[in-house]
């Protein structure tokens, strides 16, 4: 009841209060998805502005924070789509870093059949993953986040990013190759 009253008050009287109440929460989510402080601030601002403009649509069902979060998620996907347009797939020789001309693993890339990744503990894992995602080209990192963090299926991601299934698979494969490599490296050093 208290929560409802607060929602009603903050939506009718002072939407500026949204910024103090929900700003950091939305920002943290945006940052975890975008790995770019400026871009995260930008989408949070867009969320507040859009939320305010469409405040009549908030029917008081569920929390205001959850409603704003829904707007934020759509803004993030919009940004992913823009990024995927501007970073069209460059046919680089990304695989040649890992495989020789015969298509075998290069020495030192995978020198063990064991999986050192499973020895990283959970908290450390998240931190290292974020760092390594930050080193990937944005389009690849975005595809990976949508697929593995948001657990969307391939069809949905292709629709949202307006890319073809084969583009998506190439992006995911590149992301995974580089992430496993980067994460091992980071962890071992």
């Amino acid at each position, binding site marked *: 009841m208290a929560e409802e009253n607060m929602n009603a008050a903050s939506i009718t009287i002072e939407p500026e209060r949204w*910024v103090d109440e929900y700003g950091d929460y939305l*920002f*943290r989510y945006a940052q975890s998805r975008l790995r770019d402080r400026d871009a995260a601030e930008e989408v949070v601002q867009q969320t507040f502005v859009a939320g305010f403009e469409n405040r009549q649509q908030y029917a008081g069902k569920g929390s205001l924070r959850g409603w704003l979060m829904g707007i934020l998620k759509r803004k993030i996907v919009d940004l992913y789509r823009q990024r995927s347009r501007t970073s069209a797939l460059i046919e680089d020789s990304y695989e040649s870093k890992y*495989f020789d001309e015969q298509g075998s*693993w290069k020495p030192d890339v*995978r020198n063990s059949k*064991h*999986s050192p990744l499973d020895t990283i503990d959970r908290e450390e894992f998240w931190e290292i993953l974020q760092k390594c995602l930050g080193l990937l080209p944005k389009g690849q990192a975005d595809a990976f986040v949508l697929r*593995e963090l948001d657990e969307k299926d391939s069809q949905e991601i292709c629709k949202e990013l307006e890319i073809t299934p084969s583009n998506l*698979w190439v992006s995911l494969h590149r992301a995974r190759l580089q992430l496993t490599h980067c994460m091992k490296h980071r962890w071992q050093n």
Partner: protein
Amino acid sequence: MLSCKEVSRIVSKSLDQKLSMSQRVSMWMHLMMCGLCSGFRKDLVHLQQQTKSQPEPDESVQSETSDPDSQLSIAAKDRMKRAIEAGK
């Protein structure tokens, strides 16, 4: 006989969709004989599982953290308030 490069693509694909019977067979034939590719597959499966099990940020985390990197700056908050104000 598929190369490791080809198998690595199929392994990655297997995380996103159901493979055809022939792809599945060639992948496993290769994995049985190739320790490096099996290791790669383990890494990918582990990467996927661990990533999925990451919790969403929640309120309890928020109230405890004072890390400036995970908060909006005062300037950013002011800017947002003005942006909302401008829409009134």
